[in-house]
């Protein structure tokens, strides 16, 4: 494997070429916008590649811990939704932490499964909340704390100009 040029060097090179060698010769406004959008997407890819593996690892471990904490928060609450939350903590939530990251394809599959587990947990918590079970409020707060941190980090990592090119 060559280390130079790196994948980042190559993407940066394409961004520069779009700016210097292509954009000056594009006269159609829609095509100009497409060039700028392409540059933004490539920049997003650079930022994503730099952070991807570490964030997958971190979020895997954090999601497992969140599922266990939610099961703890609902305590002895009874019923199918509460049972489903406990079952999820005993399966998805029992996965050992990654350190270091295993095979990336497997990690992505597990990340998706855990994220789906969070969605299912939200639906279960909704059932509990609508039944007036106060412990579900606490459990939801635990989940929101996890999701909020991810949302902030996604914006910091991935967003380039907020996708508002050409709008006003």
């Amino acid at each position, binding site marked *: 494997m060559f280390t130079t040029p790196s994948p980042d060097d190559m993407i940066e090179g394409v961004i520069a070429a779009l700016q210097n060698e292509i954009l000056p010769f594009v006269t159609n406004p829609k095509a100009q916008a497409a060039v700028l959008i392409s540059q933004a997407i490539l920049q997003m890819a650079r930022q994503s590649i730099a952070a991807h593996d570490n964030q997958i690892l971190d979020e895997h471990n954090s999601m497992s811990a969140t599922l266990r904490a939610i099961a703890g928060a609902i305590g002895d609450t009874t019923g199918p939704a509460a049972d489903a939350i406990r079952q999820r903590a005993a399966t998805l939530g029992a996965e050992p932490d990654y350190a270091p990251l295993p095979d990336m394809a497997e990690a992505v599959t597990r990340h998706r499964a855990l994220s789906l587990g969070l*969605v299912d947990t939200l639906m279960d918590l909704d059932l509990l909340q609508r039944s007036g079970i106060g412990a579900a409020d606490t459990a939801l707060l635990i989940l929101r704390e996890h999701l909020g941190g991810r949302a902030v980090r996604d914006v910091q990592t991935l967003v380039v100009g907020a996708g508002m090119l050409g709008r006003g």
Partner: protein
Amino acid sequence: MHEQLAGFLKRQWPDADTITVENLEPIPGGYSRETFRFDARVRRGHAEEVVPLILRKDPPEAVSILNTSRQTEHELIEAVRAHTSIPVSRSYGYELDRERFGEAAMIIERMPGSGLTSALFNGGADAAQADSVCTHLCELIAELHLADVEKLNVGGKLSDPRNVGIDISSWDRYMETTYEYYLQGYHWGDFEPLPVLMDAYLTLRRAKPRPLRLSLVHGDFNPVNFLYGDGRVTALIDWENARVGDPREDLGWMQAMDVLSNTNIMGSVTKEGGFLGYYNKLTGFGITQEEVNYFCLFGTANIAVPISNALKRRFQKEHMELTPFYIIQPSIVNVLNFAKMLGYPLPAGV
């Protein structure tokens, strides 16, 4: 394209001797429709006039975000022109036959005024007009919300224009069927597990606000969907997402897009306690800031469903258009906005 446009206009204006299409060029920006500006040079006898026009064309079905009807948009625009004083581009007709323009299309008047609305804010060139323009904008959306729904909802086509099971027989049924649409729509657009969206949809259903009369809502009332000049709004544009709904949806969506666009429509009205206070005085609706916040989330959900659906189609490679990779950026920002609106514990300073 020139010949098709001239032919279309000739069918609309049979009294014209000749029609020549000039200066045809695409208008960049916007995600949902392809728009082109052009002039029609129309000769009738010895008289000649140049009519400024816009062609609004559907994108190919596979890449479309909102599958709305140009015929319905045409009928709505003409109803708004007939029954309100809201400045809106006249529609010269629609063409549903894809053979003519490649996709369904409509031709509308190109209204005067600037569309560079960011110049009204943050010390921009037109900042001195911001108060009067935003005050006028407030008056226009209030007028729309007070207008007779029956007159604007031509043929009932705006009761459920997306054909997703919305029932407008009462406010309560409208809200319940919209919640069902959001929750079902989550699965149409889950290209990735999106727990924050699911949380938003479930929370909306749990926290239903007080009822209010249903109105004709613009549906995309945001800081770029109007033109202005000389301190007035010269046109309210882009009516494709208009429908019968809760009037608070338009206020909530404007608030959401104000943040995303770094504009300040809602904070630029000095009259009567600001945009919301003035709107309440005009309508008598007594809408609270908490209700606007709720509908900020509700309105964002309303657009999140079709956008997520469009992104999923692209990421499943139903087509290979570039734009969805770009649209994911405002979607990521919107996830954080959802988190803020839902009161998530977030790091300080976010």
